């Protein structure tokens, strides 16, 4: 599995309910017979978009996260789990947005979707091509920081004088 899925911060998303659910993974349908394929990728890409939707973005960055998480070279169990999870959602991508959300909510405490949510969150919000569209610029060292690139710009509020830098206060 890629490091992003095994990263221990995934635990941030674990709740007591999730821990209980981890023991109930057998509730999922038995291991899929067909290998993880294009329809499954499409379903998980739709799930990724629904988890953290940003209307200006195409499906591409979400699809890339699914691709990175479940490449053909991934171990068989990872792919089987992904296929099982995707198929358990049925014709998810054909549903209306509200129906998809209603279906997804209760599933997010399952171990697969806890890991998947974490992978989408960290994959999407560390993708500088994505976050630049929100105004986040990423690493700044190579550009000399923001000292000469607008760190003090706040034209819509009055700037404080020296009283804002008194010490001690």
């Amino acid at each position, binding site marked *: 599995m890629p490091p992003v899925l095994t990263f221990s*911060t995934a635990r941030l998303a674990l709740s007591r309910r999730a821990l209980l659910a981890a023991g109930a993974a057998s509730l999922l349908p038995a291991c899929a017979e067909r290998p993880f394929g294009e329809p499954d990728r499409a379903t998980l890409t739709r799930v990724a978009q629904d988890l953290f939707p940003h209307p200006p973005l195409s499906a591409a960055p979400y699809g890339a996260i699914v691709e990175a998480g479940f490449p053909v070279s991934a171990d068989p169990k990872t792919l089987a789990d992904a296929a099982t999870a995707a198929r358990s959602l049925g014709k998810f991508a054909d549903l209306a947005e509200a129906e998809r959300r209603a279906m997804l909510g209760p599933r997010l405490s399952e171990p697969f979707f806890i890991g998947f949510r974490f992978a989408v969150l960290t994959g999407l919000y560390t993708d500088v091509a994505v976050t630049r569209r929100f105004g986040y610029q990423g690493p700044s060292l190579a550009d000399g920081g923001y000292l000469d690139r607008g760190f003090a710009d706040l034209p819509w*509020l009055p700037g404080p004088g020296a009283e804002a830098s008194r010490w001690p206060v």
Partner: protein
Amino acid sequence: MAGLTDPALVVIGSGAAGGTIADVLTAAGKQVVLLEAGRRIEPAEFHQEDLKSFGQLSWLDPRVATGSWSAATLAPDRPAWVVKALGGSTNHWNGLAYRPQPHELRARASYGNIAGASLADWPLTLAQLAPWYVLAEARLGVTGTSGIAPHQPSAHYKLLWNGARKLGYSRISNAGMAINSIERDGRPACRQMGFCNQGCGISAKWSTLASDIPRAEASGRLDLRTEATAIRIEHDRAGKVSAVIYADASGAQHRQAAHTVVLAANSIETARLLLLSESSRHPAGLANGSGQVGRNYMRHIAALTYAAMPDRVNMHRGIVTPGTIFDEARHDPTRGFSGGYLMEAAGMSPVSLALLLNPAGWGPDYAGFIGRYDHLAGMLMNGEELPVADNRITLDDKVKDRLGLPVARVHVDEHTQTATMLKHFFDRSAALYRALGSNDVRHGRPVSATHNLGTARMGNDPATSVVDSELAAHEVSGLYIADGSVFPTSTSVNPTLTIVALALRLAYRQAGATLPA
């Protein structure tokens, strides 16, 4: 390298306390053996990407969290976010170098007897410590002190200041920061890069990695051993410290003879090491005849408020915590709690904000908030957390580290006063952003603790404390404890400056040196 059988002065931990002490003692002509569990990571290797940096710098060895706090369910194996690397948590601290208020060092006298809390007065007053704060501020290059100019206010700080004025606050500043505003101490001026918590890539921020340790190395008297994990402190028949057992990177164990041991491993590991060092003379753990080792573990009461503003803020540009409101740090029991809290403007990257604001957040509303990133502003609360005797570090009976030793179990049940202070902060911080036109304000609480205090309380009475006001263990000759574990109470301010002031006081006395006039 000093001979393993030659009794040495051994410092355990190279962070704010250990790094400072190693520098002062070697400068005074003493030989020092410095043991650091982490490896050396040079500033050029730091990552300006939160998750990569987290993996690079964090203490990821297992611990166990129990109790009512959220770490017990959301981060059960990682209750604290601290650094495992040369320089310790001075690599990821924000550089906020504040002195506590006089009444905070007299917490028991100032707040009275609070049910469920184990309040104590510090055995030192702020006046007694003042000269050591002056020295600490000069060493760290704290802006607004020592003739050092404050930084130019960033946009994020200007926004905080405007909101604070709307609420009628008057104690607001962007000074008191151990981040160079001018070239000083062989370190450059800040370039307003952001990423202060990921290790400053240009060392504008003070750290023992960038400042004290290289100086100690240049003295020729520092014997630095990295990836050296102390696992036991031994004593002789007379009860005096005699050695430190440590494991190297391969797990092989070594015994360094010692005449003096300064323990500064951050509160959780400091308590764990004392508990691991039980002996027939100290059956409950070294220096633990009082039963106080591990008790009164405190974090700060931490919370976050983020708001979507009517226009751009770009909070990622510049110093991560660019300024603070001190008005709510006062002790004013009419608010329903004792002590107070700081309101610290705090930039956060999209990924950290999405992880922390709501650990289970998803959907169009949550993503929409993150997507307004360049309009977001936010702050962290740093509030005084009351000491509670049963909030404590013990040895876990099941989980073992790579050396087969029991890991620290960190138990916290939050005092009832915590919820009252949190609500006050959420109300005031929301009011601040609304006063500037925000109609979308959100709150959260970080899961893991970054300030770890208490666990080896300083006091005059050996029955109720572990070390005396000289940081000497009551029960073990030659053993000193010098990190935040000795704090009897947490105060409302970030702890590093106080840790350095206490460490300087100890080091000067060990060196037989007097304070510069």
